[in-house]
């Protein structure tokens, strides 16, 4: 019966993991042995029903959850997202058509859409020439003639309101390892922008300029440059103070550095090229719309793995926060979108804030963003924290993830890989929720960004997802 394992213990240095009375860890330490105190809480907040479901699933001998999760997280990490081109949505995004409006988050009807999302839909319809003004657009939006769908259902992601319409130019990021692709619009900058629900004339004009000047120039420059290895770029920006969600200053700079030598070679008006460079330069978040489809392209390759409890999408539509789980197919599990805990731009306060919105939480799902906060201590100022808090945010996320990333690393944690591959089970067990960095939109359409901060997802969507998982894979009591 292998007693030698006890004898191995006798021969080894005692290293204790202590759950419960902290004193016991202290006394072991005082006598010169290693002991780590676990910040233990009853699993699932002490909900015995969920705990018994956990036990039931974990005791199913047929279920190879660990193996399925290994496969899922390995596919996620093996993915090689590569920026290959810019195209027009209706030409490249699967299923895209003239009266389809894609939005962020899980599915939501016009009636239930949050203010900023409605504002962006209105802007999108005007942009497409489907409506002449806001009133007309609103009528059309509610008429039933417009189809709404999550970006996620069309291999796409969108920041904040995440509105994508047929004529918009989109980044095309291809996962070279698995052949799938992901799409995302180009970032419009800060202030009054469509993604925050703004739809005034200047917003539409900027979108038109992006379509006619920005996108063609970048597309041509990218063609000269050749495909850009996004994984490499993201690995670099994490070592330059970005986390790829709320801070993209280094990424934007690197992108400019990559493209500038080719942009100046283009047969275009120099002032236009300069405008393009200036536009990117003045928008620290330009790179966000590349980290997002990069993460999306990588994660999509890990979807639909039988038995896997890895979370493959987190997204918010301003009304609800939703998640998808690899082993649970296309199902969304949703809960009410939360308020964001953050800092506000001058003149705005919590009263002005919309609820949590956007697909940008795909970055956290992919192992960067809030999960790589330790790489970007500068952004903790959004929540009035210290650099130590930034380290702790990331450290905490190792508790709910499957692996340490083999490519994305954090200098301040001794180049430890970022926490990657969120495991639904670990969330249920520890009660630790994913740390998400985000921007804050004004609750009314058309105003724009009012702040940024941290958001906690609703715990109910994880419980619901877990219950569905248990029903699907658990053994009967």
């Amino acid at each position: 019966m292998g007693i030698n394992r006890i004898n191995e213990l006798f021969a080894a240095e005692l290293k204790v993991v202590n759950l419960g009375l902290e004193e016991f860890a202290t006394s072991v330490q005082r006598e010169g042995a290693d002991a780590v105190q676990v910040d233990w809480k009853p699993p699932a907040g002490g909900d015995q029903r969920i705990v018994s479901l956990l036990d039931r699933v974990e005791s199913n001998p047929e279920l190879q959850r660990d193996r399925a999760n290994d496969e899922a997280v390995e596919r996620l990490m093996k993915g090689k997202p590569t920026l290959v081109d810019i195209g027009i949505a209706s030409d490249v995004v699967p299923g895209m058509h003239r009266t389809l409006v894609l939005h962020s988050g899980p599915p939501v009807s016009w009636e239930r859409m949050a203010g900023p999302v409605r504002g962006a839909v209105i802007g999108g319809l005007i942009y497409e020439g489907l409506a002449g003004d806001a009133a007309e657009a609103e009528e059309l939006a509610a008429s039933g003639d417009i189809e709404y769908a999550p970006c996620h259902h069309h291999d796409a992601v969108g920041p904040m309101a995440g509105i994508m319409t047929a004529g918009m130019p989109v980044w095309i990021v291809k996962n070279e390892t698995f052949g799938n692709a992901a799409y995302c619009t180009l970032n419009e900058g800060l202030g009054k922008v469509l993604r925050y629900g703004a739809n005034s004339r200047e917003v539409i004009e900027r979108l038109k300029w992006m379509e006619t000047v920005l996108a063609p120039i970048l597309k041509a420059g990218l063609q000269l440059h050749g495909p850009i290895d996004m994984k490499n770029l993201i690995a670099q920006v994490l070592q330059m103070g970005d986390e790829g969600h709320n801070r993209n200053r280094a990424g934007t700079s690197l992108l400019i550095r990559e493209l500038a030598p080719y942009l100046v070679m283009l047969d275009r008006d120099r002032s236009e090229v300069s405008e393009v460079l200036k536009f990117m330069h003045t928008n620290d978040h330009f790179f966000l719309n590349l980290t997002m489809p990069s993460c999306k392209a990588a994660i999509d390759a890990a979807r639909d793995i039988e038995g896997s409890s890895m979370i493959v999408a987190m997204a918010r539509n301003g009304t609800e926060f939703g998640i998808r789980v690899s082993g649970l197919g296309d199902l969304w599990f949703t809960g009410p979108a939360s308020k964001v805990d953050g800092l506000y731009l001058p003149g705005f306060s919590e009263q002005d804030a919309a609820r949590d919105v956007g697909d940008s939480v795909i970055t956290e799902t992919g192992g960067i963003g809030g999960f790589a906060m330790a790489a970007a201590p500068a952004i903790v100022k959004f929540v009035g924290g210290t650099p130590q808090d930034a380290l702790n945010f990331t450290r905490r996320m190792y508790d709910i993830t499957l692996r340490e990333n083999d490519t994305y690393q954090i200098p301040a944690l001794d180049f430890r890989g970022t926490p990657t591959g969120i495991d639904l089970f670990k969330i249920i067990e520890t009660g630790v929720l994913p740390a998400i960095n985000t921007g804050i939109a004004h609750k009314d359409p058309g105003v724009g960004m009012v702040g940024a901060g941290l958001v906690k997802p609703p715990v109910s969507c994880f419980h619901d997802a877990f219950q569905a998982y248990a029903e699907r894979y658990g053994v009967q009591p």
Partner: protein
Amino acid sequence: MKRIIVRKDSYYDSVFLMLINQGVKDADGVTEAVVAMGTDMNRDLLKDMSLSNADVESATANDLIIALDGASEEALDNAEKTVDTLLKKKSSGNQQLFRPTSLSAAIEVVPGANLALLSIPGRYVAREARKALENGLHVMIFSDNVPLEDEIRLKKLARDKGLLLMGPDCGTAIINGKPLAFANVVKHGTIGIVAASGSGLQELTCCIDKAGGGVSQAIGTGGRDVRREVGGVTMLMGIEALGADPGTAVISIISKPPAESVVDAAIEALRQTGKPAVVHFIGARRREDEGCIRFAPSLEDAAHIAVELTGDAAHSAADFSLPESDIDTIVQAESEAIGRRQRYLRGLFAGGTLAEEALFVLQPTLGTIYSNVHPDQNCRLEDPTVSREHTIIDLGDDTFTEGRPHPMIDVSIRTGQLEKELQNGEMALLLLDFVLGYGAHGDPAGAMADAIRAARSAAHDAGGYLPVIASVTGTDRDPQNLTLQRQKLEDAGCVVMPSNAQAARLAARIMEKVG
């Protein structure tokens, strides 16, 4: 001899890799080592060093190149291993400030963790213990209120994996010289112990320490382990492991009387080890010695026999450490002033097994003793807080600890009960135990001293005298310090005996004297 490895798409920071280079170059038998990303510059460098090949030439800035030159395959294997270790090296800084939230996260933080110590609420224990076992950790469960069926299932799992599962309700263990939960700091030595009793194990290890011996390992099993339903799984595994342990020369087993089937299996297991052994079943009739297995009449005797078996000191069969004449003097001094109305012995114990041991030592002299730990239902106290004639109370009983800490920590449980004992003036002798060590109250003697003085002066005021006989389970290396604790008790008027058994025997002599 060269070895060149190219890992596609593995990006590392160059400064980080430089440090790795240094670490690898320092390895034995390695003459050259380059760990670098496949940039143009690095590829040229490797070519110049004749450490290039086709893979290197086609490598990109995203590919990690490990190029090694060394004396032997073995040296290269080691160097490669070193590289992997260094690449995976995790943060060691600031860990104290940051705590993992789960067992599995903790295992990540402490590579090589080998024991999980659980003192969380009983209903959550099974799950965490299972996880620990599944992760290859040995487990000690301090918690009580773990369902018996969980214990049986967990112990089966532990046995299948060859892992030690101590508990549930295991209060004490010493593994590799480190005290776990409620344990004393005793000398290291060659006596290995398996105990199904917490305070019994503390008394045994402390008596071994006092007798000049030392402990190799002290394994707690939890009280239910020796029941038929559990089958002594932990006890049997413990015996076998101690048998195979080169650091253990003598094995000692203590337990409340186990199920017969468990007794037989344990004795057979002891015999299999071929090592000399001493066994004490608390409260059971003493058995005849069998071969190299000796049976002891008390915890202290078990300790002394174990030390004798290691060859360090001879065991004396005498009842007391002090000469009989000295004992007579003490008995005389403590008994002569006891008042006529003072008729009954009262024992107030913090240690459950110590209460039982006192009960069995005193029974032949006093006859019927009432107790909340009495095995005979007829002698059970109806209400554990109300004494009847001769009474010994285990204050660790649920009745006393509901919503309060154990009396080893919360002294007021005992001072409160002592006040009750004083009320009708029939207490002739007070018998006390004091347990030191980690987990216990920081100064149990000091915290009890005033109450003892008050009790003695109350007896005096009523025209009588109250002898207070005590023992202290502890060592001088315990945080509370044995010598200091004894001194405080003696200053308060106690007679402090070297062991619980001797304290009970002295109490018996005094009670005999007063009739």
